[in-house]
């Protein structure tokens, strides 16, 4: 049994089955004290299920969940010092904003004056003090969201659970709320467990990210690790854009693997334990780690022909066909200082890669 007080939530071998369907397959992960932790994964992968198990709305089929060393998986929700920001906010429609925010404190047995004072403080924290007397239906979506946040934070939970709290907001408001959430987390020092299926949101906000797919934990790490060292094909594909292709490993020597991409195209990259000569595996190359030139710059350059140029604004994406091989997308920054040499469709180009751009992946 863990006693480490640096660990806020410890999920040990948690399994969730609905009848014969297994929603979560033996998940183990530790969420550190004071951490902004994100559960990221596609729809239906079990993020909400895991969150609801921590909150106490679903029982744990197998395994255990600890909160600062205490096992909580058998406790009803109202005995867990954990609060949730629901996806649809679930603000009580018959109570005004202040009473909504004070509800948790009231249930904890705080005095009326104490409840009002602390609910008021929580409202101030989300800059909604002037709306205290309104009903939730008289607020905009963004304001309701902030009330839900204040309501969950007011009782000072040890851990705050947020289930896709920003998904109903428009892009601009969403960006603003991302900053505000991060700010609130630093200000309150409360551990946040944040659920999203938006990988960009996860990368920008989180201290650490758990990538999930079909009920399994795929990778756990900080944004840079997840993005730059994806552990498998799923993570590489799900996080960011990438050129994902099937390659055959021709030979492995001195920690380098020579890979055949199809046609006459070959390149070498760092070898990965467990992948030997003859293996058919996936390779991931991030488009922004590639650059184009008229002539090859080294032995790892690939020759191709520009098919299309896509103007994105901050970037320019160039799609290049390799004769008998895969298609590549190369992204370059749209700035005069950058390496954005523009190649018109039809021109012959060389695709060059930065050090370590090509990564072999286990499936």
């Amino acid at each position, binding site marked *: 049994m863990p006693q480490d007080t640096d660990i806020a939530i410890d999920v040990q071998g948690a399994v969730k089955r609905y009848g014969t369907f297994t929603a979560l397959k033996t998940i183990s992960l530790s969420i550190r004290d004071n951490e902004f932790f994100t559960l990221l994964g596609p729809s239906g992968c079990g993020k909400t299920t895991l969150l609801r198990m921590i*909150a*106490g*709305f679903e029982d744990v089929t197998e395994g255990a969940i600890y909160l600062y060393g205490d096992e909580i998986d058998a406790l*009803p*929700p*109202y005995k867990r010092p*954990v*609060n*949730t920001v*629901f996806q*649809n906010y*679930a*603000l*009580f*429609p*018959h109570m005004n904003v202040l009473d909504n925010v004070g*509800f*948790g404190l009231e*249930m*904890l047995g705080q005095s009326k004056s104490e409840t009002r004072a602390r609910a008021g403080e929580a409202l101030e924290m989300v800059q909604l003090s002037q709306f205290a007397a309104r*009903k*939730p*239906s008289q607020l905009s979506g963004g304001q309701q969201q902030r009330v839900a946040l204040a*309501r*969950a934070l007011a*009782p000072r939970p040890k851990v705050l659970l947020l289930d896709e709290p920003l998904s109903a907001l428009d892009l601009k408001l969403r960006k603003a709320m991302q900053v505000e959430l991060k700010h609130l987390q630093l200000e309150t020092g409360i551990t946040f467990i944040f659920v999203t299926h938006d990988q960009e949101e996860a990368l920008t906000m989180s201290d650490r990210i758990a990538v999930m797919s079909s009920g399994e934990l795929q990778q756990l790490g900080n944004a840079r690790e997840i993005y730059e060292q994806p552990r498998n094909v799923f993570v590489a594909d799900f996080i960011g854009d990438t050129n994902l292709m099937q390659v055959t490993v021709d030979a492995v020597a001195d920690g380098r693997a020579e890979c055949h991409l199809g046609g006459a195209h070959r390149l070498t990259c760092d070898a990965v334990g467990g992948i030997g000569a003859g293996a058919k595996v996936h390779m991931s190359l991030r488009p922004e780690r590639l650059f184009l030139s008229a002539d090859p710059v080294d032995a790892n350059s690939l020759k191709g022909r520009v098919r299309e140029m896509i103007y994105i604004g901050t970037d320019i994406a160039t799609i290049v066909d390799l004769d008998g091989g895969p298609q590549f997308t190369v992204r370059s920054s749209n700035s005069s200082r950058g390496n954005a040499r523009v190649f018109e469709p039809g021109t012959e180009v060389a695709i060059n890669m930065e050090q370590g751009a090509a990564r072999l992946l286990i499936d």
Partner: protein
Amino acid sequence: MAKPYDLRRYPGFFAITLLCLVILYAPLVVVAVYSFNDSPSITIWEGFSLRWYVDVFTGPESGKFKDAAWNSFIIAITAATTATIIATLAATAVLRAGKFRLRTVSIGLISLPLMVPEIVTAVATLIFFNAIAFERGVMTILLAHIAFCIPFAYMPISARMQGIEATYEQAAMDLYATKRQAFRRILLPLMMPGIVSGFILAFIISLDDFIITNFVKGAGVETLPTAIFGAVKQGIKPNIMAISTLLLAVSIVMVALSWFIGRRDPAEER
């Protein structure tokens, strides 16, 4: 502006609507109008008067009607209250207790009485009371009314409850409310419009029930409908029209009340 597929544009829409309204309401209108007739005849109009209303309250039959009205009122209030409480608990069990065995059966059993012909229920209830040798009187009427009011109270209550997402109660429990507190502080206030509608519906149903009441009432115990029926058997006098109009007025007021309360969303309250 009427849309192309607007129902109102179908040929004969107004004619049919009018016909239905006339068939439904003409008798009521006739009764209401003739209750103000200054004549002992029920068919010949002789001018406006309130004499039959005075007759209802002070005439030779007024004592009988007062007793009957009092019985009806007490029974309706008690039966509606009891039925509403039972229906609220039943709706909570069926809609909030998750899946349990016989859940579908329970739902069926609750609403089945709506489909059983009333005369069958009446006979069955009478036989039941006879079988257990329960003396007939106000108590038998009350018990029977509670029983048949439950499904009527249940309908608006469960409809309302179905519209309340479970996340409200979950949010309450997440915020340290016990199940009981979540029910009292969150679910009950949100359900209130449905509960009030259910109560009013049950009240009206009890107030104007005749068939079952007539079967299970003891000798000498009358409710308003059975008293009216008894009076009508001795020939229709205009005072019957006056008392019927009063009863109609009570029903209309209650239905209107129920409609306004049902429409009021707690979220909109200030």
